[in-house]
């Protein structure tokens, strides 16, 4: 459902979201912030690895492989 807030890890392949917030003191979110995944940034899940983890996400024209545990530190609002 559009607008629903959920962890980035819950988005399925092809789904998009806008970053709302994150676990600021988690090292994974710290790194993502440095890479420019800020509140307000749009992020999409490109695909999920064959074994179910990690996920490939895209933001700011860059693609990143991210474990679900790390992706869970980011809260997004679903788009579409």
């Amino acid at each position, binding site marked *: 459902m559009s607008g629903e807030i959920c962890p980035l890890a819950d988005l399925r392949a092809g789904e998009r979201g806008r970053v709302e917030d994150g676990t*600021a*003191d988690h090292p994974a979110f710290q790194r993502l912030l*440095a890479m420019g995944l800020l509140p307000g940034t749009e992020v999409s899940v490109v695909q999920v*690895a064959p074994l179910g983890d990690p996920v490939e996400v895209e933001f700011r024209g*860059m*693609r990143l492989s991210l474990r679900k545990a790390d992706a869970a530190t980011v809260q997004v609002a679903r788009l579409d």
Partner: protein
Amino acid sequence: MDKSRSIRVALVGNPNTGKTTLFNRLTGSRQKIGNYPGVTVDKKSGTWQSGGRTMTLVDLPGAYSLAATSPDERVALDFLTGHLSGEEKPDAVICVVDASNVVRNLFLASQVADLGLPLVIALNMSDAADKASIRVDAALLARRLGVPVVRTVATRGEGIEALGKAVLHAVESRTLMAEVPWPEAVQRAVKYLAAGLEKEGAQSLAPGELRRILFDRHSAVLERAGWPAGSDPEPLLAASRDILTAAGWQPLSAEALLRYEQLGHLTADAVSFPEKRVRTWTERLDTVLTHRVWGLIVFAAMMFLVFQSIYAWSGPFMDAIDGAVVRMQEWVAPWLAAWPTLQSLVVDGIVGGAGGVFIFLPQILVLFFFIALLEDTGYMARGAFLMDKMFGWCGLNGKSFVPMLSSYACAIPGVLATRTIEDPQARLTTILVSPLMSCSARLPVYVLMIGAFIEPTYGAIAAGVVLFTMHFVGLVVAVPVAWAVNKFVLRTRPQPFLLEMPPYRLPRLRDILWRMWERAREFLVRAGTVIVAMTIIIWALVYFPRPDAVRERVVEELSVLNDPDAVDAAVSAAYIEQSYLARAGRALQPIFAPAGFDWKITVGVLASFPAREVIVATLGTIYGIGGEVDESSGDLRSALTREFWTDGPRAGHPVFTVPVALAIMVFFALCLQCGATVAVMAKEANWGWAIFGFVYMTVLAWLGAVLTYQLGTRWLG
């Protein structure tokens, strides 16, 4: 500034920006690779002549931020702040920026500039950006940022001269990047922190360094600021951060928000993206290469190719080196015939030891050809993406796959290949478990034992099953070992595994060859000396003591035989029987008794610690049929079956039974009997970890052998 002094320039940048290619372009062969004190991070430096000046260039590890959560980033931060022992602050910094992703790359530049360092932006891979219709107005960007921006294509050497001029200009006029308009609360927090530090008598810090302490979770800057021992900096830090919180800023995310906001303004109109998003080659390739079925098939095929190349294709080259070493030994030997001890030292110790180093070169070169290819094309990140789930849970990560697979051929290139793993814990764990993979040097032991004891009793199918199982023993043990090492030894929480999936690129042969040469040279220089030294020590333990009385006794006893070869073999056997190593073997035999080993097997095991492949030749010498036997030798097999216990509870029974043969194989499968691997582990991690690896594998091997023998005698009789 003094014109004769060389200018110190640091090269920084995100991973995948072509930073190292640029470094190689600028410095060519005038490079030095060393280590930073206390950490296993490569220090690459070189000289660069430009505009009549000599510049000393230091290639700092790739980083996304100076928050310094990994040892690599920590080195970059310490170097830039002048806190690295023996290193001065650089005179200028070149920040390599991927022209296709300017804003994200400038985040690091902005942090570097904040430390008060003159900066030049190298807008690298601008050809790829052009192709993707991403336009960057370098002149406008330079005006807005306040620092020189130079378009470069490192792979083709474009923009090098302009870069040199820009660096000289930056040093002369100290071009600093536009500062972030810090909100009043940040300024107040920094002042508060500075005053607090001063009160504690800590070293005074620049505002940029204070901001690192304020914004980073645990900043390395604080540690180096000379904070008085015993007093806790947390209250001061918390109070400074409270100033930010009160003003509505979350302290740990404020920096990213503020810097990206400024960069957004500075790059507006200077960077433009194509309106219609085109489907890139990378996306098309990825639909196949990371597909849940095709992706795995392609990956398996690639890995098979890599494995095959090190396992089989290196063979002829290794044989050639082996042959050359033997010829060298035969050529040297007659010259030293008058001094038998010196002859043996030179022939077996020095030439043999050097041969034992060079023998690994073909595998290292071939493996690093493929690794450079996988990395430079961008495929390595895809492989890690596919495999991460399999390895992640036990403290390894997707990048552990290549080193572990390579170790099935040989752990030396395998351990060297762990360089591709950025996460230090995962890298160390991979180094520690890679030697458990069944390398090709273990094969002769399996073939000898299976051929002599399994096949005659249980047939060819059982022989095949045992051979197959032996190759899995190490892998099956490696996973719980990795898990246990992480849980009980390293005790680290799982680190985030964020891996950029860079666009696919065509690799350049020149870069690949350079990487192969770099690795090979490093192996020869750093591990080679240790390997030769160890070979000489073991040579001495087998050679000494050497009283003439032993030879005279054997010659007299066997004088009736009139067979000089048999006499020579018997003399060798007699010498080794009373060597220091054999004495140790007899003394240690009780330890190996629960595994069913007699003293001769124990000596064979001990003699194999420097290099397990010598076991067959050693057994040949010990059993008096000479050292020139191989694992399929009928003589050796029958000699083994003719060994009987001479005393103890099993007196009169054969020494070698099926359980003993299995125990020997399990011991060799699990033990780290390879001095060269230990040396490489020491160089890649440190001696402490190398010894840890050696000890845990030896204990594991002993346990495995004892368990196999005890269960084997119970079930097989």
